[in-house]
């Protein structure tokens, strides 16, 4: 590919990336998931402690049970009701983006979601129990319904506010009172819509929105996202975008995160109950096995290859800057310093290595050789090996990363060596020229 062709492609990609990144709904979705982040980390720490692999060797069975009972509420109150945070977050941030009273936008979204949620659940052996909310509907199972309801309710709410159908209080009324009155008509109208929807669904169709959306929308979409083909396509897109110097994850993840996060929640629910997980590909699979090895493109291996095997001065500049941040999976110094961006010599390993590693990881996990991530949240800045162990709760998860590290190294090596040799020759020529002048 010639440089001008790269430029042309870049002219096409930059506006698309901009549109996706600045899309109001995707931006709101991203912020809403971030709202849940500190809480899921808290819940994750509890899950990791409860499931430490050597626990059964140092504690009696009774003591482990007591520990699990004591800490069990932490994931219940955080990750298992994650949809509530996402619903509130969408309502809040979407209202804020329209510059209408955002706290009410969040609260209205939450109530709208509860309005379509059954306040009863069927328990085995006891039939239907009334006056309870099923926890799974507030977590993984209700995720897509929650997102849909939150976006719709916030849109209705802001529409009515912006049309000025509100009660205005005379000056002198305290602002908090005035605000709650001005939210009255928009809130009542929005909630009426969802009450009506719920009546129709329950009375006419004899089901509930939770089950309907779960079956018709969530299961097919999540099924698609959990497949290896869709994942490889996502990785390919991320790598291509970064090749053009654009932040691939910000763009691709805003579409994929709802699916990957739902899969992770389903894994965590199953893991805390049975110790086994249903899915291989989850948010943590992506974070730990594609980003968590030195950043996008798993460049820690590249930095090591340069550090130990490359000779040209130009290349040896890179590890000096890149190794520190690289350990914590920040790799802009490699991407822009090597550079990877718009460098046709590097296009091949840059795209192929992550796809091969993703495939190898998937096969290792689906064959049962290495346990898949449990669904606990591990921040993406945790270094390689440690994040692998934490995410899968097993040493094998960390070891697999070391194998992947070697794969990346092998794929990159001939390309790096080629560039290195060119650089060395250039540097020698540059050194020889002034010498011949002085002679």
């Amino acid at each position, binding site marked *: 590919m010639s440089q001008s062709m790269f430029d042309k492609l870049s002219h096409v990609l930059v506006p698309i990336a901009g549109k996706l*990144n600045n899309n109001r709904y995707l931006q709101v979705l991203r912020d809403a998931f971030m709202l849940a982040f500190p809480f899921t980390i808290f819940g994750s720490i509890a899950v990791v402690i409860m499931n430490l692999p050597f626990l059964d060797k140092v504690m009696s069975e009774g003591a482990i049970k007591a520990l699990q009972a004591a800490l069990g509420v932490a994931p219940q109150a955080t990750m298992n009701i994650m949809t509530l945070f996402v619903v509130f977050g969408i309502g809040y941030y979407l209202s804020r983006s329209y510059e209408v009273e955002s706290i009410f936008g969040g609260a209205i979204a939450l109530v709208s979601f509860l309005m379509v949620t059954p306040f009863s659940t069927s328990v085995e052996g006891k039939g239907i129990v009334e006056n309870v909310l099923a926890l799974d509907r507030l977590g993984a199972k209700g995720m897509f319904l929650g997102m849909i309801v939150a976006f719709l309710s916030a849109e209705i709410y802001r529409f009515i506010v912006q049309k000025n159908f509100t009660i205005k209080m005379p000056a002198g009324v305290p602002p908090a009172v005035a605000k709650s009155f001005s939210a009255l008509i928009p809130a009542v109208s929005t909630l009426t819509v969802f009450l009506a929807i719920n009546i129709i669904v329950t009375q006419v169709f004899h089901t509930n929105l939770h089950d309907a959306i779960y079956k018709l929308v969530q299961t097919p979409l999540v099924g698609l996202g959990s497949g290896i083909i869709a994942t490889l396509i996502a990785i390919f897109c991320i790598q291509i975008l970064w090749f053009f110097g654009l932040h691939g994850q910000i763009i691709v993840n805003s579409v994929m995160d709802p699916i990957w996060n739902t899969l992770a929640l389903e894994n965590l629910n199953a893991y805390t109950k049975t110790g086994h997980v249903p899915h291989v590909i989850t948010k943590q699979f992506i974070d730990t096995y594609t980003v968590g090895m030195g950043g996008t493109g798993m460049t820690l291996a590249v930095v090591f290859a340069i550090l130990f095997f490359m000779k040209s001065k130009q290349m040896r500049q890179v590890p000096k800057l890149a190794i520190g*941040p690289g350990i914590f999976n920040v790799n802009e110094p490699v991407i822009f310093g090597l550079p990877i961006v718009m460098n046709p010599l590097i296009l091949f390993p840059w795209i192929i290595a992550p796809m091969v590693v993703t495939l190898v990881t998937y096969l290792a996990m689906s064959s049962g050789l290495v346990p898949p991530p449990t669904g606990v949240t591990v921040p993406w800045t945790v270094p390689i090996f440690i994040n692998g162990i934490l995410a899968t709760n097993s040493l094998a998860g960390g070891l697999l990363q070391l194998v992947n590290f070697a794969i990346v190294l092998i794929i990159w090596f001939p390309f790096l060596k080629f560039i290195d040799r060119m650089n060395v020759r250039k540097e020698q020529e540059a050194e020889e020229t002034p010498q011949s002048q002085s002679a």
Partner: protein
Amino acid sequence: MGVKKILLACSSGMSTSLLVTKMQQYVKSIGDEAEIWAVGQDQAKAEMAKADVVLIGPQMSFLKSELQKEADKYDVKVDVIDMVAYGMADGKKVYEQALRLMGENQ
């Protein structure tokens, strides 16, 4: 002009924070005074009121026009950091880029 206020922004404020240290070292070495800080893209709009100039990481180049729209309210210039300077965390080059932009502003 007093203390120059330079805001850097990238996806989460992590990779630009590397550059902040390098720029501050350079600023100190030439005896200048500048306040330089890094934020994630979601805070960039809120923070730019306090800045004289906004520089964004090249991986966020698609944000430029959107941020410039907001920055026009404060008469602040937004530009994308030079790729090579960013990759090499070249504090001198990026600081000079910031100065050039501010110069255009006066």
